[in-house]
């Protein structure tokens, strides 16, 4: 089932994916699709807007590199600021998720 992203979740997902290894646009989209098992699909408009915004905020840095297929592409990776951001966002999200689950598990 493919679904819309909840507001505010895209940044966290991208930070988490890029924490593992530097990736380029197509790679990020693929990885997102793969780890969420197709739940989240992202178009290039939202993807690149988010990447540029996060880079401007100093969470990501970018550099041109070569893909496995031998094409030139821009690779993004986490900065130190981005790593701290990932940690704090993760804590925040887990708090929310826990609260949500408890609420939903209340007996009818």
């Amino acid at each position, binding site marked *: 089932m493919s679904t819309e992203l909840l507001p505010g979740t895209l940044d966290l997902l991208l930070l988490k994916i890029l924490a593992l290894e530097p990736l380029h646009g197509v790679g990020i989209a693929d990885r997102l699709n793969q780890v969420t098992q197709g739940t989240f699909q992202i178009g290039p408009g939202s993807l690149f*807007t988010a990447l540029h915004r996060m880079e401007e905020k100093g969470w990501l840095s970018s550099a041109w590199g070569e893909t496995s297929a031998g094409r030139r592409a821009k690779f993004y990776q986490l900065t130190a600021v981005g790593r701290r951001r990932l940690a704090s966002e993760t804590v925040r999200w887990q708090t929310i998720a826990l609260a949500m689950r408890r609420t939903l598990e209340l007996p009818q």
Partner: protein
Amino acid sequence: MSLISYLRSLYRNLVHRGHADADLDAELGAYIAEQSERKRTAGLGTASAARATAIESGGVEQLRHTVRSARVGAAIELLVQDAGYAARRLRQSPSTTFACILAFAIGIGANAAVFSLANGLLFRPLPVNDPASLVYLTEHNANSGWSNGISRPDRDAIRDGASDVFSGLATAALDEVGLRSGVATHSLWACYISDNFFDVMGVEVPGWRGRTAGPEMVLSFDFWQSRFHGDRGVVGGTAFVDGKAVTIVGIAPRGFHGVSSLFDTQGYVSESLEPPTQFGTDTLSAFVLARLRPGVGLSQAQVGLALIAGRLAHAPGKPRQGFLLRATEDKGMLNSSGTNPVGAAAAIFLGLSGLVLLLAAANIVNLLLARAAARQREMSVRAALGGAGWRLARQAALETAWLALGGGLAGVVLGSALSRGVTKLPANMGFPISVDFSFDWRVYAAAMLAMLVMALAAGIIPALRAARCDPADALRGESGASASPRRLRLRGTLVTLQVAGSLALVIVGGLFARSLIAAQHAPIGFDPHGLVYVTLDASAAGYDAARGDQFFNAALDRVRHLPGVTSASLAEIVPFGTVSVGTSVKAAGKTDGAAYNTVTPDYLATMHIPLLAGRFLNANDHGGIAVIDRAMATKFWPAGDALGKTFTSDRDKTTSLQVVGVVGSIRTDLGQPIQPTFYTPFRADKYVPVRTLQVRGNRVPNLTATVVANLHALDAAVPLDDVQTGEESLDGLNGLYIFRFGARLASWLGALGFLLAIVGVYGVVAYSVAQRTREIGVRVALGARPRQVIGGVMRGSVWILATGMTLGLALAVGIAMTAASLLIGISPLDPPTFLGASLAMAAVGLLASFLPARRAASADPLASLRAD
């Protein structure tokens, strides 16, 4: 987000925008390429793979735009883009742009200049502590109309009787004195001040001790800087004021220039050194300043003074008729009582410059409305294509901002040129004045703001309306709003008002210019050409009465025998000078005011004043006789039998004066009616320490220099003041100065108004012709002759001109009647000025509408028909 990374991104996106964009393009290109490569490997053809990718990603251009507009600084980038577009749009219609900038510049510049002048003359308060609670006290005689200084007993009576309204009363008598310090003698205007003067003014002068010490002197900051080069060693030293020793105890604070807003007092001396004045020992020729107690208003002070005046007027043994005491606030030149040419002039010019501001604003509104209507279609197309309303409005605002920026800069140049041009006029005042005419930036900002608000409204509202209206209508060419009769009527009304205001400005400018010409040729009763005046101050040299009389006789004798000199005389008062004296005269059962002068027998011959009856003074006259002028003869003896009659004056109530001759009246002040005047001889027992020498030497080169050199050779100790020719003396504040000032300012404002009217009429007619291009094309195609087309176009503007000019004439009559006191020698309704200005306005207005009409009539009808 951290500020540093934000600024870094901003810098990259704005400054290295090309690089950032190329990088983005490459990145997105790589993405699209990889995606379509995948689709191809999945089995699609190259073309359909690319198309599928493009569809999926929503279009490459769209993608780029999405990412770019989310970048930091995108809003700024957009603004810069819009501003650039606005500038390009303005460049496409250079004439409208130029007219708008001109109107801005005129409106702002003229107002800033006039307000700076008025501010300098009228509104700058005294630089003292709490100037609002400081008032001036004067005596008035209701019978003669003259104001006098307050006598010492009266001053003391006020101080003791009105202590409930005044917390302090100080006196300051202005006098021109000689200051000898070391070897140099400086001539300066100083005040003899009471001990508490600085306390009452609320000015700190360390060193001034007052009564406890001997004679003291304080120098003004500017005088100390200019004559003593700021040397602190001066303080504590001994100097001589008119030959009497004083100790210089201090320097007044910078900016403090004495008792009057305009007068620059250069020094302050203990009043114990004040010599007896020419008006007798009892009268103070002084400013009497009083400090109101906290919470006491001017009206309460007047009540308190009226009570004391009543008591003084009915004092036993010395009743005084018509005796009044008044308190006035310092209002710069507005301060003096009665008709005041400077105050009236300032009011008139503030009004005129306000009119210029309104005209300029009307012009801009009109031009922008026309412009907005012409761009109706562009705005509608942009709105139809999805242009946001706010962005269209911003576009209009940006164009207005460019215009305001250009106009504002041009306004500074124009305004400072205007105020420099007016203040450059030679002001022959005879005393140092302290007027700050500096360009007033607050006024500039206020005028700029007012114009900007009006211009923004005129620019933005039509844009917003265009964005709201149905795009389909606009695109069909029905351009509803642009041709709406309501808006055309609004613009027609604006132009009508512009014509009215401009005509009024031109007429008033013409009146002032003609008044100056009339004033220059006005009969003044004597011949100023070939005269040289020198004022001699024997008291400044420390001379007593006997020594002074001896000096004056020697000086007169010496200049009289100079080669080429036909006549010379001495007088107490010189026409158009800074001082005039008057008194109350009782004669033939009447009491009225009259001016007087003390003169030597040659005065009449030197000044070229005609003798009408009897004789003039001769060397054997010493007292008991007087020569009166025609105005005084007519006032007291209308039957024409003045000769041999006697009168008394308040100057010397015990001596009655017999009229031995009648002479022609002379003007002593161009702004005032002729004063009845009487002349008496100098008397040994009434010593006058300051006298002016009149020397007539027709066609003698360097007469002034010769006279000055001879007087110096005679006695270098007596300072020579106000050395000027007869013509120069006419340029003083009582003479032509105010007329030159008024004529120059008014004619400039008139010219600016004229220019605005031309721009306004031309702009609106040209625009309405452009709007009617198709209609005119149809007419021409159907056989209308050019004359008929031109007539049709011009009929509308003739109507506008006619109503505008009618209103303008009415407005001009109103202003001229208000300014009547400033216009001498001509009627305020001077027919040649009114007629000439009206003809000029009509001619220019018709020409401004004829040109676009002829262009329309001669246009190719086919081209006109296709135009829309």
